[in-house]
């Protein structure tokens, strides 16, 4: 049986970047590429199957799904990537703090908060934030970030606990590095890659959660095109016009696949010594 060491396979990184580039061009170029106005309703052409005129068909208001998917990409990707990075940052910080002061009161409190948030019905959070701050995509992202950082924190903490046993950590300490310096120079580089890979998988779930919460009023308000709410709205016509879902769903899959390939490729590139694969 060939033992696959961590040898580099650039293929996944390159394919990932290529797919992402295509997506970026399609989405950022939406105003030029989109054949129709994403918001203009046209009752005559309701729920048309994919055809010459409408490559991905039309939705219940007769709007062109391809145009909406392209324009929607901007809102969805921008906002979910933003939310993800915020969650990533908080997760890394908390994870490192908890790992660094392992066993201390701070570590215990943080772990308890993480347990609570893990068990928490996310719906309640979303509801409260919708109520206090109002509906809309920004507030949904607030709700998402306030709960999403937990998985990143858990992972970072375990990476830090591993790193503390390694020589480089001891070396930095002996050389007089402060805790902050150790975090920045030793722990962060090690935690980044596994957390990045986890993030690529969380991206898909994040976009889907926007779809799941739209009935609460969170997420992009109509008529703005956004993948999550397009999926949610497509549900009503699921059997009559399944093509409504194919547009946004395909783009979501492509995006998550691209980030996933990049994540895997990066991990090989970033940390040749990296043994911890997640």
């Amino acid at each position: 049986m060939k033992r696959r060491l961590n040898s580099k396979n650039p293929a996944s990184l390159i394919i990932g970047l290529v797919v992402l580039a295509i997506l970026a061009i399609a989405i950022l170029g939406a105003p030029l590429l989109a054949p129709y106005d994403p918001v203009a309703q046209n009752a005559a052409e309701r729920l048309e199957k994919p055809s010459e005129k409408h490559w991905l068909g039309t939705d219940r208001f007769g709007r062109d799904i391809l145009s909406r998917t392209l324009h929607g990409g901007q809102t969805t990707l921008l906002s979910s990537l933003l939310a993800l990075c915020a969650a990533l940052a908080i997760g890394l910080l908390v994870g490192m703090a908890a790992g660094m002061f392992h066993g201390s009161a701070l570590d215990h409190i943080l772990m308890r908060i993480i347990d609570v948030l893990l068990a928490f019905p996310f719906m309640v959070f979303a509801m409260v934030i919708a109520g206090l701050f109002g509906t809309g995509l920004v507030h949904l992202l607030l709700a998402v970030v306030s709960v999403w950082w937990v998985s990143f924190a858990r992972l970072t903490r375990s990476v830090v606990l591993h790193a503390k046993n390694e020589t480089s950590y001891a070396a930095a300490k002996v050389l007089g590095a402060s805790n902050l310096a150790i975090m920045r120079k030793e722990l962060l580089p090690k935690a980044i890659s596994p957390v990045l890979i986890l993030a690529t998988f969380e991206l898909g779930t994040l976009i889907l959660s926007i779809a799941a919460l739209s009935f609460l009023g969170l997420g992009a308000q109509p008529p703005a095109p956004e993948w999550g709410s397009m999926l949610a709205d497509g549900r009503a016509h699921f059997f009559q016009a399944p093509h409504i879902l194919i547009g946004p769903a395909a783009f979501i899959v492509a995006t998550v696949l691209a980030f996933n390939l990049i994540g895997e490729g990066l991990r090989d590139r970033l940390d040749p010594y990296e043994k911890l694969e997640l």
Partner: protein
Amino acid sequence: MSSDNRAEALEVKGLQVAYEQNGRRTTVLNSLDFKLGKGEILVLLGESGSGKSTIAKAVTGMLPPSARIGGGSLRVGAERIPDLGKPGIPWERIRGRGIAMLFQDAQSALNPVMKIKDHFKESLLYHGLASAEGAAAISVAMLERLNFKDVRHILECYPFQLSGGMCQRICLALALCLEPAVLVADEPTSALDTVSQKEVLDLLRKLQREMGLTVLLITHDIAVANAVGNRVIVLNKGVIEEEGETRTVLTRPGSAYTRELLAARNRIARPARGLPPAAGKPVLEIVRLSKTFGGKKRVLRQVDLTLNEREILGILGQSGCGKSTLAKCVAGLERPSEGRILLRGADIGHLKGKARRETSKRIQLVFQDARASLNPGRTALQLVQEPLQYLRIGGKEEREALAAYYLHEVGIADEALTRRPPQLSTGQCQRIAIARALVLRPDILICDEAVSALDMSVQAQILELLQRLQRQFGFSILMISHDIRVLRAFCHHIAVMSNGSFGERKQESGRLHESRQPHTQLLLKCAGDMEDGLV
């Protein structure tokens, strides 16, 4: 395996192996031939990078995926493989019953979640050498044969509960249960301390006598070759420099390379003296220091030790005796449970935060795994400036100048200044680590097994470097090692530690043999036996 009346147990012809790393292909072995006689222990002696472990992996089909086998034929017992490069070789038939293998890191060569007895049961049952009950009996017999005392208890243990030496002997037993034609052992004893090392090597000779065991032993340590090899092949960069009967090769070497190897080793044997220690002026005093982990494991027991100005003090002990923990406590990496550590009279044992970081200017530590202590992404110049940045000493240019100066002092060539650890040899990494430690002008430099992972020649260079720097900057050195030869040649005094305490006060390194401690005598005897026959 039907035994073959012919003399050779193993024959390799025209072995050609190269490695391919992102595009670049480097040839390691170029058409190598050698034979291994039945009941013979053949030693493959060479420094790291000589290709010796590539040979071991090639003959057992365990080369990593990045290896490319250019060619070469293998005959072991009745199996004949014309071309090792072609896929579809029936390795499962050859491994175990034909060629068995021992690994360097014995503890991680056993499945961490399986009991020892299950390891035996699995192999024996799979190869049909015994029924379930029979397997237990065979394993007990084999372990007893390998000098294990309470075998019942050992069989019920998990690998992490046993010492490195014990694990290696268990791996040996595991291999022998399958009655292999050849045993390939890749650096089997270099991770063990002298006592366990001697035990394993004696065993190999005893099994050779009693069972006619054939061994291909790979090592970089001349003493090991001398202790156990019938025949020796000296390997250098994939080419056989010399081959012959052990005694002749190691005493009257034919090739220049072998002579160089032996000379490097002898350089360590002769004690080169540093500055005479300034008597009576202690720089570091350890008073009744104890350390227990998790409330149960007592690792240090009321340790007392003094280190004087400009003194090189060696701490000798087997693995697990607590010498590293002592080093960590002094360097501030561990907090002692009881007792005090006085640096020029001031207790630094329980300092915290800023104050503890200040002591970094006074005490520095160099690690065994030099490469792991350096960040792979930074150049040599940047690495040496790290401590200056951490403690905010001097401006940018001043730091660079200081770094360049010390790198030059430790013998790093100018063009290597901008190279990163992955492009540097282990020796160079250790030099950079030392430069980094000295840039703060510490009073004490602790070397925790700083040379034991290096090749013989490199070991000698680093030790000489340390002596020169010690003379030049006048700091004291606390040298921690399991290798009695290195300490005797390098230190003024040696203190011997066993399970957490020093039996007696430190002694002149020259008069160690006068010690009355049985443990010290045992260490001396083991080291001594390895030496006899060598000049």
